């Protein structure tokens, strides 16, 4: 059925695949900004955005009213506003770097997706094949490496704005992002110590991590979030700090720094920063779910293969690779979206830390904790896997 696809030249095929993934990430990132406003409204017990509507949709009896209340047309209205607004360029900025900064923000945010698998299917032999753009052996390192480049957009934006508050924000950004990278890296090491058991081919890819969480038995089916709760917690906190989300958004804290690194930005350039932030959140949530949340397995102790086996009793086409692929992608996306909801939930639950508190938590609490955690698991894993 899909033979024609494999006759396309490889370069073109890879291009189409990459474009397809970006075309999913980009609208989700846009929709997240809308969801954020809706979730904020829900948590604060107010209706939230519920006015914008396209006239001919309003003529549909019940559905039109429902969609209006849901606020879905505000995404389009916001996007249209951002596109057609005057794209101002302040006179005192370094023009080249000022325009470059939002572009630099987008590049690492969308490039990290390459190394993250988002689903799986079974080949003829029943082996799990992860679905992703590049099945890298060093997946985790690739995500860390490329996402660490995201700091440059903030540094450049703050510096090129040639004004005090953006500059302070960019100085904060470079210090904060480097600080939390350390504990984040140390937190994932126990996972890979466990996955790289003696006798297995060494890997830092995500596929092996998920495979390890979908084995039979009590310990085999356990998600790493339950097996290594401290690692998961440190990774989660560092993820909040790395994506500049509350309570760690001191980089753009509007109370003391106006708008920080994007104070001087407006219209579409400003929008790009936000799409980049949400893309970072999406990829970060995806990595968290792969490492600690079982990846594309529907429930703890219920692997994808088991679930497909159950579905096979009801649906005749349950074992078709296409169906399994779509099922695993929907499970994974569902988890990622739940995680993004968690990000928004935390935003309206915890107050923002002061900058000195952020640094203190990073260096005096998270880093020693992650080192102790690594030592504990290194000894425990050595004893268990002996």
């Amino acid at each position: 059925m899909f033979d024609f696809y494999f006759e396309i030249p490889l370069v073109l095929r890879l291009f189409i695949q990459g474009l397809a993934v970006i075309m999913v990430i980009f609208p989700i990132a846009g929709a997240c900004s809308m969801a954020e406003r809706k979730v904020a409204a829900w948590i604060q017990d107010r209706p939230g955005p519920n006015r914008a509507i396209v006239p001919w949709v309003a003529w549909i009896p019940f559905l039109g009213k429902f969609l209006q209340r849901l606020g879905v047309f505000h995404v389009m209205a916001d996007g249209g506003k951002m596109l057609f607004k005057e794209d101002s360029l302040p006179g005192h900025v370094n023009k080249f770097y000022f325009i470059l900064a939002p572009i630099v923000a987008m590049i690492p945010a969308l490039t990290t997706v390459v190394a993250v698998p988002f689903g799986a299917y079974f080949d003829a032999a029943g082996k799990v094949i992860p679905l992703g753009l590049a099945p890298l052996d060093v997946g985790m390192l690739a995500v860390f490496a490329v996402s660490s480049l995201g700091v440059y957009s903030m540094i450049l934006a703050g510096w090129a704005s040639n004004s005090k508050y953006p500059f302070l924000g960019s100085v904060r950004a470079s210090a904060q992002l480097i600080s939390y990278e350390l504990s984040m890296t140390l937190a994932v090491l126990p996972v890979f110590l466990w996955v790289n058991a003696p006798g297995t081919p060494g890997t830092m890819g995500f596929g092996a991590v998920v495979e390890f969480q979908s084995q039979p038995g009590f310990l085999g089916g356990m998600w790493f979030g339950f097996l290594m709760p401290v690692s998961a917690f440190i990774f989660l906190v560092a993820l909040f700090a790395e994506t500049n989300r509350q309570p760690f958004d001191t980089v753009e804290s509007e109370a003391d720094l106006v708008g920080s690194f994007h104070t001087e930005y407006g219209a579409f350039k400003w929008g790009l920063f936000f799409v980049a932030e949400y893309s970072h959140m999406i990829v970060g949530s995806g990595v968290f779910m792969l490492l600690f949340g079982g990846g594309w397995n529907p429930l703890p102790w219920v692997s994808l293969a088991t679930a497909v086996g159950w579905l096979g009793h009801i649906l005749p086409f349950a074992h078709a690779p296409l169906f399994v692929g779509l099922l695993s992608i929907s499970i994974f996306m569902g988890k990622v979206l739940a995680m993004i909801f968690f990000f928004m939930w935390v935003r309206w639950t915890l107050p923002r830390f002061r900058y000195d508190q952020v640094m203190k938590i990073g260096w005096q609490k998270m880093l020693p904790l992650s080192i102790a955690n690594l030592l504990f698991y290194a000894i425990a894993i050595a004893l268990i896997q002996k």
Partner: protein
Amino acid sequence: MPDLAQFLFLLFSIFTVLCAVGVVVNKNAVNAAFCLLLCLVGVAGLFVQLDAYLLAFILLLVYAGAVVALFLFIIMLLDVQGRQSFGFSGLTTFAGLMSFALLLTGLGTIAVRGHLDAPRLNRLAADGAHMKLYAYHLFTTYLLPVQIIGFLLLIAMLGVIVLSKKHDGLEDLK
């Protein structure tokens, strides 16, 4: 018509060399640091072409992600806008001439012989590509160098702590 691998090699190497020239030529320190960043990205691209994924991503993670960010951080904090231009002293002129002579000798040798000594392809395949083999080498063949570098870094770290700490009654320590 070169094939894709050759095209990518040319692309990345020309990009890397141009950025490296940019680092040296640029008067503005921020421009130079940014060129250095792009140069490192180019080198990482070349490593990926050699199947040395680990090396490529470690390069990005450590140098492009952290070291150059700290460079930029320092440049911005000190606000150096190319005003400290050092003149040539006797020593720098000598060092410059020496390195230029070395470069010329190297280029001349390649030009005369017409080719580089490339290791045989079957030897290249394994070492950098697989995590396990790489770790094996680090913990067996290269254990001593790794330990020595670790101690050097530790000493450097202690030095930074001593220099940056405020000592009571020792204000002129620096």
